[in-house]
């Protein structure tokens, strides 16, 4: 059957829940009650600190066939996911579903555990490197489920994703389980993703390299959610958690795109005192902040709110008074970690607050503007951030679909060509964000406005920006790079891309390479 994004979706997918096709960004109203963790009582005198990960695995009651989770706040510096899974393998536990908030570059080490059957399925926001390639080309018992950050919280809270045991990399943890992310040798800033798993998993194990006396302050994850604590030598490499201050790019093409995106923000109609914004973590998105700062100073307009993963340059805007409050689900660099530790207007918040479509109003609903990157876009304004030009999973949905759905104006920044490959095409390989929620595409060679948004088109008419139709943009790309050849796919479904409401937006079939 065809879903509302025009994608052919099978009526049923082996190993996946009942298929509900995507019907539009706001088509589903939930029904029923929130799921929750098992009730438990920890009595006075109970010692939560255990001697080893193995002991914690045993205590957690982890058995074959269960689902485990991790958070990705330590990014490419994380040691915990690989460390715990190798311990689980040594314990002889098998057939686990692995459901981290995302995978990162360091998780290629997990491939043998998938091959050995320790892990048999994955549910995640993103996949990288060899693990992404492995899961695209090797059939497991279930397809990999790909969800946005908001979609993951929704799935957990409605019971579609039941986490039996979560192992939380805790930069600082006290002896009774209070956790924060701002102190310790592997400080990562916001614990926004882990806070969800701590709240919803049946069993919560904190893995820390900075075990301190009770009580620690500030508390991101409270003691009453934490079952066990294990002290290890190191939970992560600070160099991979944050490569220092995230600098604004010097790549002239990204700067050129960023400059135009800032101008779109200025002219599109929502650049008014006390507006709200989110900028993605890509080079051009972050650089947009640099140009927007100049515009904000010139026009004497400040933003009341900025959200998302927070890069350092946003903290500078906060300090300058150009942003009222930052709400931070993930801190991207040392500057952001330092800021969330010291500036009370830089708030930590959890992912449901940020992006969950099924609560009484996530922060993304308040956005005027969001600027996000894309691997490729198509003439229906659909965005792909998940698969590469060979159909291999190598990206992450992150908060992309959530912020796009929430914002009044969603701006996508991308080069028109990467190498010789056109990035505006007839149809993206995989739809990760539907075109109905995308308003403006800014490339280095031209800007296209979604024809549904006559208001934006009118506002941008005399801006001096190179506005053209999306078809004209595509033709430009094809004239330079040629029309991309179609990839051949098998019928095997390797990944299911869920929209944030749990409907099937697209499926990822195994490419025939």
């Amino acid at each position: 059957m065809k879903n509302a994004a025009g994608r052919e979706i099978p009526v049923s997918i082996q190993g996946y829940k009942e298929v509900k096709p995507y019907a539009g960004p706001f088509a589903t109203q939930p029904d029923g009650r929130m799921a929750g963790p098992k009730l438990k009582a920890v009595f006075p005198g109970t010692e939560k600190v255990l001697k080893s990960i193995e002991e914690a695995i045993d205590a957690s009651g982890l058995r074959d066939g269960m689902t485990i989770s991790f958070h990705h706040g330590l990014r490419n510096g994380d040691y915990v996911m690989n460390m715990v899974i190798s311990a689980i393998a040594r314990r002889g536990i098998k057939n686990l579903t692995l459901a981290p908030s995302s995978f990162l570059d360091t998780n290629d080490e997990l491939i043998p555990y998938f091959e050995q059957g320790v892990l048999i399925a994955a549910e995640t926001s993103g996949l990288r490197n060899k693990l992404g390639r492995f899961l695209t080309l090797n059939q497991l018992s279930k397809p990999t489920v790909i969800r946005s950050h908001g979609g993951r919280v929704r799935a957990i809270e409605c019971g579609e994703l039941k986490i039996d045991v979560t192992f939380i990399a805790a930069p600082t943890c006290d002896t009774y389980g209070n956790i924060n992310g701002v102190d310790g040798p592997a400080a990562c800033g916001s614990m926004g993703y882990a806070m969800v798993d701590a709240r919803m998993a049946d069993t919560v194990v904190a893995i820390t390299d900075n075990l301190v006396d009770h009580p620690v302050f500030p508390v991101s994850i409270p003691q009453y959610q934490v079952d066990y604590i294990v002290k290890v030598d190191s939970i992560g490499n600070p160099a991979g958690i944050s490569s220092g201050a995230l600098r604004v790019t010097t790549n002239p093409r990204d700067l050129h795109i960023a400059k135009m995106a800032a101008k779109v923000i200025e002219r599109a109609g929502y650049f008014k005192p006390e507006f709200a914004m989110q900028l993605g973590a890509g080079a051009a998105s972050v650089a947009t902040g640099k140009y927007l700062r100049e515009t904000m100073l010139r026009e004497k307009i400040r933003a009341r709110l900025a959200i998302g993963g927070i890069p350092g340059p946003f903290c500078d805007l906060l300090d300058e008074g150009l942003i009222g409050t930052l709400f931070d689900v993930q801190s991207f660099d040392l500057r952001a970690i330092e800021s969330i530790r010291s500036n009370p207007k830089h708030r930590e918040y959890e992912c449901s607050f940020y992006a969950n479509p099924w609560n009484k109003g996530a922060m993304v609903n308040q956005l005027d503007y969001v600027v996000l990157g894309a691997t490729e876009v198509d003439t229906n304004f659909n965005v792909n951030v998940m698969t590469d030009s060979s159909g291999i999973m190598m990206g992450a949905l992150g908060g992309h679909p959530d912020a796009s759905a929430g914002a009044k104006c969603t701006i996508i920044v991308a080069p028109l060509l990467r190498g010789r490959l056109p990035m505006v095409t007839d149809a993206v390989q995989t739809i990760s964000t539907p075109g109905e929620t995308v308003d403006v595409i800014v490339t280095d060679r031209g800007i296209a406005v979604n024809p549904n948004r006559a208001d934006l088109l009118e506002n941008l008419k005399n801006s001096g920006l190179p506005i053209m139709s999306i078809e004209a943009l595509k033709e430009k790309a094809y004239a330079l790079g040629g029309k991309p050849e179609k990839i051949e796919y098998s019928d095997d479904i390797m990944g299911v891309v869920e929209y944030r409401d749990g409907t099937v937006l697209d499926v990822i079939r195994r490419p025939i390479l």
Partner: protein
Amino acid sequence: MAKEKLRRTVMYAAGNNPGLLQNADIYGADSVIFDVEDSVSVMEKDSARDLVYHAIKNLQYSCEIGVRINHISTPWGYDDLECLLAAKPDYIRLPKGETGDEIRDIDNIITKAEKEYGYEPGSIQIMVSVETPKGLRNAYEIASASPRMMALAIGGEDFSASLKTEKTKGNAITAGRELFVARSMIVFAAREAGIQAIDSVFSDIRDEETLRNEVQLVKELGFDGKSCVNPRQIDIIHEVFTPSEKEIHYAHRVLGVFEEAQTKKSGVIALDGKMIDMPMVIRAQRVLALATAAGVYRKEEA
């Protein structure tokens, strides 16, 4: 005013870098030069030449494209011309120009190529960079050696080196004193020959303040534009060379009272209590022409 094309920025792109060549026109430079001279090592001269040829031949650029060839006294200069003229660049940029004879030699080769490939006669122009005292002494001769000559440029680093000094940053007042005479003489020669004058590159891309001062200085000296090596410098150079709203407004008023006086046939013209004479009218016309070319002024406006 036929040669008064807007050339506030003349940006170099290394001829051996496909990524640069592909995207050279997207940054808004008024003119782009594909370089097969100094940015290309001896080992890569032929491959860069081929790459530049194919780029010009196959890609549609939205701005003027020139090629900087190796000097015709080097082993590559004539081969550069033979190969690259077949792609029809908008102009040839000759480095280290020293005599009118060199220009006439290149003019002849271009004329032949224009015939051979059926291009419109005279359609390929020449810009010459002066980098030595000898070239400076012959600057007017070079500038007037061919009707194809459209601009004289100064190669600041090379020129300073040939003076046995260095190109300094100085400060807002002393900026680049070593080039003061040379820069002015380039402007004199260019103006006498009726062509444009383009200043040399400022190579520290992180130092935006000194760049701005230097652009301000060369604008005051009379230059039409400045070379640059990085797209990040374009905005600053354009900002300085593009007439401000205030300048445009004033020029508009000057021309207004001038035209009014002409129709009334009144002798003395004044604006805000100041006498308006012919040089001021010419300057006002130039400001509006520049503003129009830069897209910041349309005649109906103001």
